[in-house]
């Protein structure tokens, strides 16, 4: 585990909120947010429309680049955030000089994301089913589930990360207090995101018409069988796009676990910055997160399109 590497002192892992937020907005805007999206949004059919949208995109891009280059502090910003040498050094890392590889650290983000995703899908479903239940026996559970969702949707994820990451170890319980920061991070992400995702599930369950339940029950299927074979498959099909949307968000939020000291990509980039005093490492981390999230975003778009076409075909038939 990267986070437990003894070669580095804990003094390197300082979280610097001021630096982080100011640098990200300065570096992020001109480079990423205008790329590629324009033509797709503007295309309205015909070659002329294509030419117009291509030209307007180029003009906007050129204007933004020009503003960036003409800014009084441009060369300094370019050196601090886009220096190719520093970008490469922070990507591969150099333990002898006291900084980690951002490229290796992203692997921790990926593992935390995958673990949290599985746990969230399970926990959120349980919460949603409890909240959707109707029996009077389950009333106390329903109240608990509602409080849970209210609480974890209302508390900032960063505070949950701190609470779990510093609170659970302090309990000094044998099983749960000796885990790595990444494990606490996964627990915090799961607690927080399950509250959101359970609401997505609930929307999905509500989207299946009551007559489907009646049909399933009228055939003698038990409530559990009706749920499993008839209701859930349809509900989940309806909520795949919003679910994936939440998971794109989850991929990014694994970076918050860095505040505990786990060496994930963002934390590794910060360490590089505070060691070498060059923040090109943050640009590297941003690019790596984009490499992770963009494919998932495109996949989500693809599923939305496919779903729309399927339903249109269904309406015609």
């Amino acid at each position: 585990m990267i986070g437990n590497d003894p070669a580095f002192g804990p003094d390197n892992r300082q979280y610097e909120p001021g630096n982080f937020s100011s640098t990200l907005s300065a570096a992020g805007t001109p480079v990423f947010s205008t790329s590629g999206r324009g033509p797709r949004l503007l295309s309205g059919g015909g070659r002329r429309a294509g030419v117009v949208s291509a030209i307007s995109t180029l003009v906007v891009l050129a204007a933004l680049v020009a503003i960036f280059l003409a800014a009084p502090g441009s060369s300094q910003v370019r050196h601090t955030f886009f220096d190719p040498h520093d970008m490469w050094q922070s990507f591969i890392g150099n333990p002898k000089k006291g900084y980690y590889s951002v490229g290796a650290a992203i692997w921790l983000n990926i593992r935390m994301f995958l673990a949290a995703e599985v746990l969230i899908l399970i926990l959120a479903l349980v919460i949603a089913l409890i909240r959707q239940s109707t029996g009077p026996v389950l009333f106390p559970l329903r109240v608990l589930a509602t409080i849970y969702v209210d609480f974890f949707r209302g508390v900032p994820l960063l505070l949950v990360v701190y609470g779990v990451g510093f609170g659970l170890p302090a309990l000094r319980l044998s099983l749960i207090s000796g885990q790595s920061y990444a494990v606490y991070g996964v627990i915090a992400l799961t607690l927080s995101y399950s509250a959101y995702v359970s609401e997505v599930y609930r929307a999905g369950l509500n989207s299946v018409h009551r007559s489907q339940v009646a049909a399933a029950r009228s055939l003698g299927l038990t409530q559990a069988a009706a749920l499993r074979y008839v209701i859930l498959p349809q509900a989940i099909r309806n909520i795949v796009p919003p679910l994936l949307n939440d998971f794109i968000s989850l991929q990014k939020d694994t970076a918050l676990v860095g505040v505990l000291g786990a060496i994930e990509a963002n934390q590794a980039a910060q360490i590089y910055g505070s060691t070498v005093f060059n923040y090109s490492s943050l640009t590297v981390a941003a690019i790596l997160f984009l490499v992770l999230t963009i494919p998932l975003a495109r996949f989500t778009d693809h599923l939305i399109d496919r779903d729309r076409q399927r339903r249109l075909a269904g309406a015609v038939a």
Partner: protein
Amino acid sequence: MTVDSLPGAMILEDVYKSFGPNPVLSGINLEVAPHEVVCLIGASGSGKSTLLRCINLLEPIDSGRIVLLGQQVTGPGIDANRVRRQVGIVFQSYNLFPHMTVLRNVTIAPTKALGMPKAEAEEAARELLARFGLLDKLGEYPDRLSGGQQQRVAIVRALAMQPQIMLLDEVTSALDPELVAEVLDVIRGLAADGMTMLIATHEMGFARDIANRVCFLEEGMIIELAPPAELFTDPKDERTRRFLRRIVDAGRL
């Protein structure tokens, strides 16, 4: 225990049901003999659908008694799933499972509710689908079928549980006129095979053909119950006459 040995396949005694303050069924008494076909007619909102849903235990009744195949099914401690396995119901809007193929729609209940092996369930399903001219559709999804085909699949789905009683809830009301006949033919086939059926319908001609007795409902009460020849030609009650006059005026009889 065979159906024939019983006095009635379906006995309703003083059944009351209301939705909130609105009474829907106000003291229904009805006995359906084995192999008998009874048609329920009446205006929308007269309680036909609710009556069928209560018999299938999809709606709890407020008071009264329902006895199916010699067994009381109302009251505490009743395993509704066991009751439903013997009583098939078909809905106006088909309610097929859209994410399953026709074959899976038909086999899901036998395999998951009865524990029938998959191969056996599929064999039985093929046989039933073939009987109703749907064998070439078994790999299709419901939204690729016409309304008439969907409704026939829904009937096959209910029959796959080998029910002793079938409840049909205005099964042709959602269909285009040219598709009504194919579904009615299927129901005629069931009647000829001796299926005990309670049919809510707006098709008066069909009711006259197929029913042993016709039951006119108004405001949750049975106004008149008689063989079709009698009820349609010589209705005793003024309310029945008024209803039938409206039907004739609308050109539906």
